Every structure is written in structure tokens, then in C-alpha cells.
């Protein structure tokens, strides 16, 4: 097991290297430069030259990359944001909790609803409910996140006024943030008002972000349960007189869980990228809005650093998923 984990961690090195080159080139392939984004049509030739000089953008590409590589991986300095002039690691640390909180909210939403829905659909195979859940999940997968977000906000924020349309917290609420996970902060500081407020702000973005995983989880659960419930060991268990509930829980659901957990793991990684759109629409101050703003401003250091960080998280999430298989399914052993 330990060997497996170490091997996966070592693999991280070539992944990050390749990724750093890709990101580096991709960003420079975007039209425009930080100089234009900073100065717009005011940019005189001299001012542009000044800013490009400053960022070394007039050096040959391979020299730029080498400098970037040395700075990032050897000096371990991720640089500073072009627009805010602050350290990228600081900004990342501030924004990561917001994105994790949103991703966890979305994942909870999709698991709590997806697994039971898929299970029910399988148990009522061929019924109206089954067909209905299939159609609903198809819609869930195909509806664009930003469109869903705007519709949700229109209904629950603009029309009904039940939930806020933007942000993580009501700006008028006094709350302390020791960890920057707002829900957790509210619990730690025993601030009930802030807790309710944080949850209210989380509901719509979590639903908008969670629909795709919800639909995927529902479908996979359904397919997996259908598979498993016709297995010999299930029949045997029934023949032995195990109660239907016991069969469902111990024999069907537990075995059906393996593909579901794979999907949950994969979807969690995808949530990080899906969060980019959701965060923008909900003005959620996480990594997504950070990166979108950085693209608009041609903020190279933020894009380079931010994408690398996200890739690292992605790799780790997948590793955790792989390791968790061993616990869920004792038949799997890594060596």
C-alpha cells in the first residue's frame, strides 16, 4: 500500500513538469499581454515596453520558461499577481477554502440525492419513477451550469427572495473567519446567525454545481444496483433468509458502492473545474473567479501558479479515491 502511494506521488513529478510547460505555452498563446490588459488603449509603445521588460516578456520563449521553472520549482517562489501585486500563495490560500466549501456542498448535495434516487430507480426498474429519473438525469447532465444558475437565482433570489444571489456571506453580518471555511468558522465561533447565513449562501451554488454529479451518480448507482442485485450471492443471501433490508444494505448496496465511489472521486476533481463557471455567476470568491479574472487581465503568474495548484489537488483527490477503494472493497490490494 505504502509503495503504491509513493509510486503515485513520484508520478506527480512528470505530470507537473508536463503541465507546467503546457500551461506556460497555452497562456502565452492567448492574444494580448499584461501590458495591454493593464493600460488598455492608453498604452504607449514605451509603456508597453516598460511592462514587457519588467516581466521578461521580450525574452525568447525558452529563456522565459527556464526562468519560470527555476523560480517556481527551485526557488519555490510562485511569484506575485500582476494586478493585486500580492503573493500568489497568499491569494491561493485565501481562496482555496471557498472553493472546497462549495465543492463539498455540491458533492453532499449530489450524493445525498443521487445515491437514493439511483437505488430507488433500480429497485423500481421499468416503472414510471425509473424512466422519470433517467430523463431528469439526462436533463441534469446537459443543462449548462451558468444557465441553471441564472434560472435558480431568478426563482429563489429575485422572485421569491428566499436566498441570496451572490457571495458567501451577507456583508452586514459580523463574523470571524479563523479558517476561511465560513460554515466551519460559524460553528467554531458559535455564531448561529453566521452559520445560517453561510448555509443560505451555499445552497444555490451547490445545487448549480451539483446537478451534473447528481445526474451521473444517479445513473451509475442505478446501473450498478441493477447489476449487483442479480448476482448469485444476492440470490443465495435471499435463499438463506436474510431480511430484504439486510440484503439491500449488506449485499447489494455495499457491492454496488465500488463504481459509485470511483465516480464520486472523479466528479470531485471535476467539481474544481466546474466551479470556475459557478463561482463567476455567483461571485463566489474562490479559485474559479480568481482564474477567470486572471485570464481577463492576462495575469500570467496567477494563471501559471493557480493551474499548477489545482492540478496538484486533482492528483491528490484521485490518489485518495484509489486508496479508499481498498477500504471499500477488501478484494482490491495495491502492491
Amino acid at each position, binding site marked *: 500500500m505504502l509503495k503504491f502511494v509513493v509510486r503515485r506521488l513520484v508520478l506527480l513529478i512528470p505530470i507537473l513538469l508536463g503541465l507546467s510547460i503546457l500551461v506556460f505555452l497555452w497562456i502565452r498563446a492567448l492574444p494580448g499581454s499584461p501590458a495591454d490588459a493593464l493600460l488598455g*488603449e492608453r498604452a504607449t509603445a514605451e509603456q508597453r515596453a516598460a511592462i514587457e521588460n519588467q516581466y521578461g516578456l521580450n525574452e525568447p520563449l525558452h529563456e522565459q520558461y527556464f526562468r519560470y521553472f527555476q523560480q517556481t520549482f527551485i526557488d519555490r517562489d510562485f511569484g506575485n499577481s*500582476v494586478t493585486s501585486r500580492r503573493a500568489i500563495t497568499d491569494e491561493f490560500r485565501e481562496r482555496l477554502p471557498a472553493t472546497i466549501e462549495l465543492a463539498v456542498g455540491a458533492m453532499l448535495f449530489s450524493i445525498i440525492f443521487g445515491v437514493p434516487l439511483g437505488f430507488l430507480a433500480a429497485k423500481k426498474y421499468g416503472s414510471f419513477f425509473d424512466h422519470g429519473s433517467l430523463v431528469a438525469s439526462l436533463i441534469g447532465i446537459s443543462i449548462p451550469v451558468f444557465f441553471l444558475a441564472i434560472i435558480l437565482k431568478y426563482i429563489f433570489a429575485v422572485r421569491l427572495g428566499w436566498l441570496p444571489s451572490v457571495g458567501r456571506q451577507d*456583508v452586514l453580518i459580523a463574523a470571524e473567519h479563523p479558517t476561511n471555511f465560513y460554515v466551519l468558522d460559524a460553528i467554531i465561533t458559535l455564531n448561529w446567525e453566521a452559520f445560517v447565513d453561510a448555509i443560505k449562501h451555499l445552497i444555490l451554488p451547490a445545487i448549480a454545481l451539483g446537478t451534473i454529479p447528481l445526474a451521473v451518480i444517479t445513473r451509475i448507482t442505478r446501473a450498478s444496483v441493477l447489476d449487483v442485485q442479480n448476482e448469485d450471492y444476492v440470490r443465495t443471501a435471499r435463499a438463506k433468509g436474510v431480511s430484504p433490508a439486510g440484503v439491500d444494505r449488506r449485499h447489494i448496496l455495499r457491492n454496488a458502492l465500488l463504481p459509485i465511489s470511483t465516480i464520486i472521486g472523479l466528479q470531485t476533481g471535476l467539481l474544481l473545474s466546474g466551479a470556475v463557471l459557478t463561482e*463567476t455567476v455567483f461571485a463566489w470568491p474562490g479559485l474559479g473567479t480568481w482564474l477567470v479574472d486572471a485570464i481577463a487581465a492576462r495575469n500570467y503568474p496567477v494563471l501559471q501558479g493557480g493551474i499548477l495548484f489545482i492540478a496538484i489537488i486533482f492528483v491528490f483527490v484521485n490518489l485518495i479515491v484509489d486508496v479508499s477503494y481498498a477500504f471499500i472493497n477488501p478484494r482490491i490490494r495495491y502492491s
Partner: protein
Amino acid sequence: MRGKPLRLLLLLITLLLALGIAGCGGDDDEAEPSDTGAATEEDGEAASGGTLVFAGAADPVALDGALVSDGESLRVIQQIFETLVALEPGGTEPVPGLAESWEPNEDGTEWTFQIRPDVTFHDGDPLTAEAVCANFDRWYNFKGPLQNPSASYYWQVAFGGFATQDNPDAPAESLYESCEATDELTAVINLTKPSATFIPALAQGSFGIASPAALTEFEADAGTVDADGVFQPEGTFGTEHPIGTGPFKFESWTRGDSLTIVRNDDYWGEKALLDSVIFRPIADNAARLQALQAGDIQGYDLVEPQDIETIAADSNLQVIDRPPFNVAYVGFNVGTPPLDDIAVRQAIAYGLDRQSVVDNFYAGRAEVAHQFMPPEVEGYADSVTEYEFDPERSKQILQDAGYTLPVKLDFWYPTDVSRPYMPDPKRNFEAFAASLNESGFEVVPHSAPWSPDYLGQANEGKLPVFLLGWTGDYGDADNFVGTFFQTPGAQFGTIKAPNQEVHDLLAAAEAETDQATRVGMYQEANQLISDWLPGVPYAHSSPALAFAANVQGFQPSPTTNESFATVSITE
């Protein structure tokens, strides 16, 4: 028995749903204060009070005017800091700010400012002439990376260079020479050459006067230079302790979330009506609109033209227009054929259907431009040669000049861009191309991505006919026609084909210290430019802001010098 787990699951789902709904419903009453703009009256404050939540598109960079040039920073800075020269509310005419009056010497190189008495900074220190000079000296003595245009942009626009030229790309010469406090409340600013343009320029938020004690204590200029040569401030002046004299004081800032300022109860002038203003960044246009509709915010800037109808139709909301402060133009490179021929330029001017472009692509938020500066700015001429759309006349001019129709025209427009003065360049271009094709021309379309290709090529003088525009920094004619035509440049091809009369007149106008004479000179220049035709201005657009209907007293300014001190929220 078999149905038990199913029922359990159903029960669980029902419970969760119920919890969710109860969670929403139960908080209605709690949520109300923020929904209605939160009139929290404290300490028996009278009719005034409340909190306004206002959304911009991004977080400010820092609250130190000398080191920023972005609109979101300056919006907040203008509430906390004040400048020597202010602008009349809603206009561009300089009026007394922290200086009660100012007077030039004979030749306009020495300006004496009478500083307003009994003004204190938010830290309790009094405003003195010495404090004013300390600010000017700070700006003039910026070193190294602080001389980069991404930091001290507005100083470089208004004053040029610094005491020492550390950055080879920074301007070498400075208009500023020195500042002397001749007594407690008299500051004398010496310039290296006569200039009057620096008076309106001083009204920009970047020249807000900060408490010298706070600048030192919170190390405004301390920092390191990162691997990219960019200045990384280490002090906390611009992030935690911005201390000026304005009607609002800084309270707190959670990046990416909200920035709060509160009323300065010791303000020397009319005190602010609101208790506090909270600025929050909402980058997405649709999200800003929905946040306003939902009552999460009470106002926002940068309203999209297509949203204006929705807002205007909603009785709970209102649209506020800024007076136009920009110009979109069809530029010519007068140094290249056939545009070196005035007949061709005139034919193009008559062949552009500007009215239909303005009517169709600006959502009713623009007027047809006839001069290279907006009507609000002094120096706008009462009348200039105007070119009404007249295709027959175009053809006639071309034929009289001996051209065989159609005349080929390489006409450029930018892609991937929307500017306030030009929301949809491609459609502007298409309409112009159609009207020119009717007028004896054959338009050859060219396009390039806005940045860096299009802007770069335009500024290098490689585009014969092109769409471009400009938004002013401050309310002075020099900032418009002076920028375009005072010195021969590449964009309009005036390096190859200068118009000495116009260049000389604009240079003289910049140095003239008598305002009435200056205005006359700019009016004359506008008439000359209109006959010379280095381009055809076609639109001045009005950017819009949106507010909840119960927000009163916001005075829009063409230069976005807007104070929240006069704003109030009615029940």
C-alpha cells in the same frame, strides 16, 4: 418488510427537503434588513444613515492613489482621500477642493495654493501646506519599480518623470520641479515649464492628499522587488490604513468579498448621509444585475447596454447615465495614399452614416460626435464643419478630384473587444462599410484581435482607415485633442504629414494659463481639425449605473469623480 429501506430513504429525502425549505423560509425575517438596504440607525443619528452596498466588477488593487490607475481602486480612494482641486459635481470644471484657491505667476511656472484651514486627516493630524508638499515630494521621488507605468501611471501622464530616472522606460523630464510651504497654509508648486493642464489633472483620485504621518508609519513605499521587477508593497498603508481627509473613513477589507468605509464624523464639509458604504466585487454582468434585483446590493457600475431596458422597466430600480466622456472615431493615416488627399477624406466623411450607427448599436446611450472631444469639456467649439451623410456628395467630390469610382479603401476594425465608446466594433464597421460602398468606395475589410495586434498596429501607423476611440482621464481638452494631435504621431500619420498649424496651436494652448484664452484656442483647434479631417469622430456614449429606486443623491460624473457622501437611502 421489503419496502423498509425504501421507505427509510424516502423519509430521509423528505426530511432533507423539509429542512431545506424550513431553512429558507425561517430566515425571511432575519434577512430583511439587508434586503431593504439596512437602515440601521445608531446613536440616535437623524434621518440620515443606513448602509449602501455597491458592486463593481473587481476588487480594488490598493487604496493608495499614487500607485494605482484602475477604476475600482479610485472609486473607493475618492471617498477616503481628497485632492487640492476638485471638480464641480457632475462636470469637469475645476473647483476648490483641499485648496481654497490657486494663482499662477506671470509665466505660469509657479502656482500658489491656499490650503483650506481646519481640515484634519482621519488620524487627527491637521492638513497643512507642509503635508501637501510632502505628498508631492513623495510622488516626485518615487524610485525604481515605482516608476513603472503600471504603478505611477497618472503621475507620468500629468507630470512626466521623477527626481531620478531609475527606469529607462520612465519619462526623462518632469513638469514638476518643487513644492514649498511658504507658511502654514500656503503651498507653492514650481513647474519646469508653463502649464495650465496640471490644474484639472490634479482633480484625479490619484492625487489625493494622504496623511504624511500615516504614509511613514504604515510604510507606503516600503517593499521588495520580485523576480519580475514588480514592486511588492510590504507596508499596510494601501491595504489597511489609507488615511486621508475625505467624508468616509476606511473600516475593513476582506479581499474578494467586501470593502467597508464608514462616515467621517469630523469631516470639514457637509458630512456624509450614509453610515457606511460596502463595496463588493461581482465580475459577472448578469450576476450584478440579479444581485440588484434580489436586493443583495443597492447599486452597481458598468451596466451592460442590453440590460438597461430591463432595469428601466422595473419600478424598484433606476438607471443613472454618466455624461459622455469619450469619443469613438474613424481614424485616417493622413500620411498614406489615398488618405493624404483631403478630397478622399472629405468623401469618406460624407459617406459615413454615423446617425444610423449611433441609433442602432448603442442602445440609445450615445450621441453623434462631431469633434474629437465630448461637449462637456471646455474648449468644445460652438460650431465646426459638419459632414452629414450624403452619398451623392461623396461620389461628386471623388469624381471632381479625378478618381475613377469605386475607390478602394483598406478599412480595419478590431475583434474580441467591446469598449465603452464602441460596444460592437464589427457591427459598427459593417454599417460604415455599407454606407461607404454606396458612396463611391469599395471597402476592403481587415480585422485583427484588439490586443496586442490591432492596438499595436494602429499605434505604429500601419492602419490606413481604422476604428478606435478614447476615454478621458480628466476634464481638460488637452487630454483629448492634445493627446491626439499636439505632437506629430504615428496613429494618424502626422509624423509623415504634419499639420503644423494645429500642432503649434495645441502646444500653445497647453502652456496658456489664462483659462478663457485657452478655451478659445481649443475651440479654434477643433474647427481646424474638423476641416483638416485626420479622422471622423462618430460617437460619444454614456456609460450607465444602476441603483435601487430608493437610493437618492448620486451625482454621476463624466470623469467618474463620484462621491457617495451625498447619497442616501429613503424608506
